[in-house]
């Protein structure tokens, strides 16, 4: 099922009662979530992504705008009639019921023609439990299970009534690092199997990048970019998106465009074929860690002594396949930032050396207007 937003807006009164101005949690959303996709709402905390999720499921009503499920306007429909399944951040498993009863709970609410016999319900519950692979735990109580298992029960409970939309609020935030990777693959697999349109909310860009078909980057209630993860990573529309995605984070420097050339400090890092006809101005230059390349010297060594971009070397950290080169630069956007470049471990950089120089991969270099922070190149 498609979900479409038209000018969706949600304003809250300010929590600090002395401030009259309202807080805009969701600001004029207009976009469409395609059928059967896994969509990640990504943004820092307080950006309104959870509010957006609550608007979809009907726990909040919008101040303005409409929400459509396919062609049905569901804006004024209460949550119970929307046919959505939701997994809460804290799972919200009923502590006094065992797994089977928790999963059966939504089915017992069905009325009229949809009403099921106990056997049917048990069969459905087992089916849902099998999808998330917890069928051996059916008689346990929530507090007798690990966080990961509880998460699966919560997903099974959301899936059991065959929802039209599955919503997950920070599904991985209560799990430890190892379980997180396992569970996010699990979510991807379940979504693939069931083909239910799934929306999840997260503040962790790695999580969103790794499993989403589509990610929506949000900040302060506004959408900054929508696209496939790789697209958003490779073609950020503004400085915020560029900074928010990627680990290690993008390296940002202040620089300028001067006579068709891109300069940082005294160094001219990219030429006319990159800048084309962008007018002269002050800019922010973002370079992904993998955008730094070592140029072979005359002796054929990759020793970081040749290149268009020079910086003060701080450390060289060898991590198996890759090496991370830590450096600082006088033109950093934020003074004193420890920048990182990721290069292949074939390098021969001398850790004792004071200076390191790189060539740059133009595809990994983004230029943003200093004023609007929008992407220029």
């Amino acid at each position, binding site marked *: 099922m498609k979900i479409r937003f038209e000018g969706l807006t949600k304003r809250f009164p300010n929590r600090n009662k002395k401030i009259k101005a309202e807080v805009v949690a969701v600001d004029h959303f207009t976009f469409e979530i395609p059928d059967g996709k896994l969509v990640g709402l990504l943004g820092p905390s307080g950006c309104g992504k959870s509010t957006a999720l609550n608007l979809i*499921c*009907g*726990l909040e009503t919008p101040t303005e705008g409409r929400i459509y499920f396919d062609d049905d306007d569901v804006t004024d429909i*209460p*949550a*119970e*009639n*929307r046919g*959505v*399944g*939701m997994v*809460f951040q*804290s799972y*919200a498993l*009923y*502590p*006094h019921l065992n797994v089977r009863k928790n999963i059966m*709970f*939504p089915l*017992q*609410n*069905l009325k009229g023609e949809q009403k099921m016999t106990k056997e049917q319900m048990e069969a459905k519950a087992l089916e849902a439990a099998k999808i998330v692979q917890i069928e051996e735990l059916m008689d346990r109580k929530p507090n007798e299970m690990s966080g990961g298992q509880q998460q699966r029960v919560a997903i099974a*409970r959301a899936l059991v*009534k065959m929802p039209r939309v599955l919503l997950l609020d920070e599904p991985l935030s209560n799990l430890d690092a190892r379980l997180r990777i396992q569970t996010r693959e699990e979510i991807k697999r379940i979504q693939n199997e069931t083909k239910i349109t799934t929306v999840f909310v997260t503040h962790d860009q790695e999580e969103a990048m790794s499993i989403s078909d589509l990610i929506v980057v949000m900040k302060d209630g506004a959408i900054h970019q929508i696209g496939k993860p790789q697209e958003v990573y490779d073609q950020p529309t503004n400085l915020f998106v560029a900074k928010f995605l990627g680990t290690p984070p993008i390296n940002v420097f202040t620089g300028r465009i001067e006579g068709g050339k891109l300069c940082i400090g005294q160094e001219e890092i990219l030429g006319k074929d990159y800048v084309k006809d962008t007018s002269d101005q002050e800019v922010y230059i973002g370079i992904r860690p993998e955008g730094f390349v070592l140029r072979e010297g005359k002796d054929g060594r990759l020793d970081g002594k040749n290149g268009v971009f020079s910086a003060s070397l701080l450390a060289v950290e060898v991590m198996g396949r890759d090496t991370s080169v830590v450096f600082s630069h006088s033109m950093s956007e934020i003074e004193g930032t420890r920048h990182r470049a990721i290069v292949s471990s074939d390098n021969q950089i001398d850790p004792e050396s004071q200076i390191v120089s790189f060539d740059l991969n133009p595809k990994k270099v983004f230029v943003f207007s200093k004023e609007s922070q929008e992407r220029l190149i």
Partner: protein
Amino acid sequence: MSAHVDNQESGRSSITGKPTYRKSSTLTKLKSLKAWLYLLPALLFLGIFMVYPLIDVLIYSFEEGYNSASQTSFGTGWFNYAYVLHDPYFLQAVKNTFIIVIITVPLSTLLALLISLGLNSIKKLKEVFQTIFFLPYVTNTLAVGLVFMIMFKKTPYTDGLINMILAVFKTGPIDFIDGPYWAKMFVMCFYTIWVVLPFKVLILTSALASVDEVYYKAARIDGTSRFRQFTHITLPMISPMIFYLVITGFIGAFKAYSDEVAIFGTNLNSAGMNTIVGYVYDMLYGDSGGYPSYAAAAALILFAIVFTITVVNLLISKKTSIR
């Protein structure tokens, strides 16, 4: 100074490798003495007014024909218990107490639950209602009991307020204070509920508020009806508090006394509205007083009843919470 500090911590400092000192036994003794000194007032008062009476009351209850003037008795045995159990006043008191318990405990708990559910579902005026509902808790039961008495009482000069209202429904007039037994019992139960409700409402309102909102959100998304939300989520989650209220409610209702005095005056026997506790006090002191042995026996019988009911309650609550 530093030696003194280390000394206090000698156990721990041996782990950290600092020099350790042997615990000075005089210092330990001194500290122990000081602790007992802090406890002394409490121990003294509790010893005299709780522990000793506890033993004493048992002795009283088995001393036959105790004479408080000469402080002598004929011997020991079960006579006091037998006397009390055959005393029609006591049997009347037991009957009254049980009726009050059976009516007021379930009714007040149920009413409190309804009121707190209502309170929890509103936002506007919630605090105003809460404050009003709590008011009876801080008022003197004897004083307000007098007001109730006047509202219900029928005198030669006036039928009273309640009878005026009843007249609208073409019933009455009924003398609720000196009239038929069931009318008196009605006033008694009504007043008891009026008095005990604030505490129960308060406890249940905070219990309801402590149920995590997320469960209701999850239930709503799953299309759970309000009734089912109540029976399958709210009730199980607040059941410990309900059991707590039922148990304390039973204990409190079995000890009913001052509410009765408030409505019917000190001579409860003649009003036929005496309670077990009232019987104990009457035996101890007052017009028919001077029999601490009978009082002791009656008090112990009451204690046995309350104890049994509390144990039964606890067993039931354990059983249900396991299920």
